[in-house]
């Protein structure tokens, strides 16, 4: 169901866009367009059909309490410190010498102490460059479409067999609108199948422009209640739901997989899941998946020296299976249960 061919629509829209760009005297070649990317991950098998490469972009309008990629939230680079890889100041100490602000000092247990107040003013972060152990890392790098796609294309031989391709993810990939669209256009040029993982909190026009360039959409529906949504993600869900409706009505042939991260004390209850499923029910070509909350991202909060808002809470397995049953009852075959 993922591989519905959209080539006619695609190429038609594509030519129009090319033409428009030309008429506008738009000079910048898509290949040269740059964006903030924090990871290009090969062999991704859970974010779209087949074997894929995910391009993770930086910047997100939401601040979900459970976010498993906190390094994706800010548009600017983040400095991460993975203490597990640190060799210790007495054995290494290159970072303490490299910091132009003198903000890295010897802390307890021979581990560097990082005073982060200057980091946002420090563009190149030489401490990370100096760290031989990849203990200090910079999340985020400005990269061109050309550069990113050259990496994506390395696995073409795998996409060919698995019907996989490129997935853009984030953060919210459409937040860097020019970059995201350039990336999708150029991927289309090179006949790379594309998918997006979106939180839906974007300009309607951006989504409309991206849709014809996509073969698959993974669209997060986190909650139906706008108040609770705002409380837990920082933003209301009205635009998200409106965008979702626009997408599925205006692009009825585009395969959409709605996804809900099932998060303890947020949406791990029958009422919420039922409401989401009821919302999805009328859109017959939309499929649905639930992703159980996991704590693995908490490590990265520590790397970034940010508080772990979720604490130690865990998702109850039994409860999750019960919620899966609810979704299956409402959506039938349209609900994807991975363990089948």
């Amino acid at each position, binding site marked *: 169901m993922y591989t519905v061919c959209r080539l006619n629509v695609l190429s038609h829209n594509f030519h129009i866009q090319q033409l428009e760009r030309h008429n506008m005297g738009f000079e910048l070649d898509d290949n040269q367009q740059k964006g903030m990317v924090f990871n290009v991950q090969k062999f991704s098998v859970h974010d779209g059909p087949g*074997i894929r490469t995910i391009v993770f972009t930086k910047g997100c309008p939401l601040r979900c309490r459970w976010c498993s990629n906190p390094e994706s939230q800010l548009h600017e680079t983040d400095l991460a410190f993975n203490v597990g890889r640190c060799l210790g100041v007495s054995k290494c100490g290159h970072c303490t010498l490299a910091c132009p602000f003198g903000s890295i000092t010897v802390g307890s247990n021979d581990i560097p102490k990082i005073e982060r107040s200057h980091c946002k003013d420090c563009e190149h972060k030489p401490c990370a460059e100096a760290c031989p152990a990849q203990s200090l890392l910079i999340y985020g790098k400005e990269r061109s479409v050309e550069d990113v796609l050259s990496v994506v294309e390395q696995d073409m031989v795998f996409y060919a*067999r698995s019907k996989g391709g490129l997935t853009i993810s984030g953060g919210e990939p459409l937040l860097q609108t020019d970059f995201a669209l350039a990336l999708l256009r150029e991927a289309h040029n090179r006949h790379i199948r594309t998918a997006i993982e979106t939180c839906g909190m974007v300009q309607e026009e951006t989504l409309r422009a991206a849709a014809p360039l996509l073969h698959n959409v993974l669209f997060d529906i986190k909650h139906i209640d706008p108040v609770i949504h705002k409380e837990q993600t920082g933003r209301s869900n009205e635009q998200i739901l409106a965008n979702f409706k626009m997408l599925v009505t205006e692009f009825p042939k585009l395969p959409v997989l709605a996804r809900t991260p099932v998060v303890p004390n947020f949406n791990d209850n029958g009422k919420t899941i039922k409401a989401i499923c009821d919302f999805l029910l009328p859109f017959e070509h939309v499929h649905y998946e639930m992703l159980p909350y996991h704590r693995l991202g908490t490590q990265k909060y520590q790397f970034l020296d940010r508080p772990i808002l979720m604490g130690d809470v865990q998702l109850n397995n039994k409860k999750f299976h019960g919620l899966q049953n609810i979704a299956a009852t409402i959506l039938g075959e349209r609900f994807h249960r991975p363990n089948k």
Partner: protein
Amino acid sequence: MSTVTCDCRSPQEQRLLDKIAGKEDKFRKTHQRVFKMLERFDGQKPRIDIERALYFTQSMQETEGQPLVLRWAKALMHIAQNITVYVQDDQLLLGRAGCDGRYGILYPELDGDFLDIAVRDLPTRATSPATITPEDAKRVIEEIAPYWKGKTYHEALNAALPPEVHKLTYDDPQGLVSRFIVNETSSFRSSIQWVHDYGKILKRGFNGIKREAEEKLAALDPLSCKDQCEKRPFLEAVIIVCDAIVLWAKRHAVQARALAQLEQDPVRKAELLRMAENAERVPGEPARDFWEACQSQWFTQMFSRLEQKTGTTISNGRMDQYFYPYYAKDKAEGKITDAKAMELLECMWVGMAEFIDMYISPTGGAFNEGYAHWEAVTVGGQTPDGRDASNELTYLILKSKREFPLHYPDLAARIHSRCPERYLWDVAETIKFGSGFPKLINDEEVVPLYVSKGATFEEALDYAVSGCTEARMPNRDTYTSGGAYINFAAAVEMVLRNGRMKKYGDQLLGVETGDPRNFKTWEEFFDAYKAQHMLFLKTAFYQQYVINKLRATHFAQPMGSAMHDLCMKHCIDLHQEHIPEGINFGYFEYMGLGTVVDSLSAVKKFVFEEKKITMDKLIEAIDANFEGYDDIKALLKSAPCYGNNDPYADSIGREIDRISVEYGGKYSMKDLGIHNDVRYVPFTSHVPFGKVVSATPNGRTDGFPLSDGSSASHGADVNGPTAVLLSNYNTKNMGMRDRAARMLNIKFTPKCVEGDEGTEKLVAFIRTFCDLKLWHVQFNVLNKETLLAAQKDPQKYRSLIVRIAGYSAYFVDLSPDLQNDLIARTEHDTL
């Protein structure tokens, strides 16, 4: 996620046996018979059975001076007449090479000169411990070993190698301890892996071959001295050996019939009578049904083990092809059910599991830890006319692989570009079962390569997987002595130490390429590496030259030759140096590709290009085994590494491969008269080879294992499995033919291949492997135990990637608490 350490999937039988003992296996109910048999030798320490060695020696003592092939046949006849025959409880097949339970046998023609010492040491040796009764040990020491002193191949080789070759080969004057630099492997097995044409025996029987030999004998020119001196003894040997195996089989029939007389249970009584009838008929006469076919193959296989020790033990060939007509006929006639057919096959698997491939020499033992043997059963692939070969028996064997609780048989699935989806799906599902089988061998690499080396398409398309990763064409291919295993990581060390190694002190072993501190450019450094590399290759080829000549005077194998078209046609033993019309696929082993590439990459980048460290500092750090140089070690590890689809590293790998392949191309056929191609398949030997090499510029510490096969260095492949495959592809010189197998191990977490969607992705991954024309791949779906191991040893498992929707991380970067979380999820399949 991808490769960690690995060997060629050596059977971890103990773990599985424990599982059988601990809890009821879900397949037990439908496999009662084999489970009962397995439980009988559960946890048993292997015993050494000396009968084969004893009777072989007795006969050889009597026949001195006669042609070797004839002596060997007479020895086999003596064994057939005297060795104890066994009828095991519950077994449906007859024939074993030694006592009940787990057992190994001895080959004093290989190791007789030190067998007495070894037998004394054996029970205390750390690797491969086995038991021997005091009476048997006494007989070995007093009756067997003394005869062989001064007569073994091993002694002859040790004496024949010139000093400059000897010093890179052995660490002692007796040639018992390897240097692990240019290691010879010909003295602990009489040939590399081999597979017989079992189908021929099923169709014609040994009596048919005997008649052919008799006709040939009658047609010999009585006036030709060549006919009389060479062909006559060969043909006489074939006749003797055909009689020997038939006699041995019939002794089993007598035994089974006697037991049937005493048997109270009518069901077992009938089985025993049928087994006796089978053994009266096969392998002398053609098989008529599936049971007879299995029995005929099994007798042939087991008697062949009595004949000689081939590397990894004798392989099983294309079982789904040669058994199929018998299976199909029985099924059509309603004589057999799939369950019964599977039971017969599994009776063979049990027999394989009981056998232990004993290595007596310390070097041999180090090569094959854990009694590993690979008697590859081949399924799938193509027919000789290039059509897909899969059939219902293929699927039955795959099913058995999923349900049989041990790592036997060593199952190999041939893959080609037109494999039906059902076949690949079944293969993928079998892999997902977690044992890592089947291993996959790629027709799209093997077939054209073999054609380019002189095979016809028909022959090449009909290849059988043999041993660990090799492929054989049983009637075209000929024997080869074990080739050199070359430690190229030692070559890197010799560049840093001007031709010397830390372990061997001041002794000059390699080329004096000068003090590397004086090298001005990367090119100078790489030239020095190439100089050491060339010396190693030269030494290996010199060894092989001597070995090929010596082997022909020390080994014969009338039985294997009787089954080979070319040997019968030309009346020549398979161990002779050159078989007319034959193609001889020898190889030498490149040990430590990842270690070498990563080391050279780090030197190139950090010393010569970025000048982050000086050569002096690098050597200082290496001399100190990186103690006190943690930052340098970390820096070196961050160099571009092989296994990441990184052109920086891969181009070095390709160049190294090229100079090796080119050397083979230039000197194999011209000087050796055989192919001697570069191969990347280490068994478990990357461990002992690593022990002699001090720290290397890739941040590897003293004595740590080398990278294995064509896999990346431990944990160096941080970009996932697609990059691992592509690096492999990148480092191959596809325009040249003088290359052999490359072994590649890939690890997946269960989540990556979960559900039908996961199977689909695994199938796509396999198809891409096929597209890339890589020789071999073996997958391992990780379980809880592996993740626990990764927790304990993060350095080794640096590349374990966790793939969860919308999230990514390396396993070793997670805190212990989160790792435990992940492990728990793995266990509960909800990862």
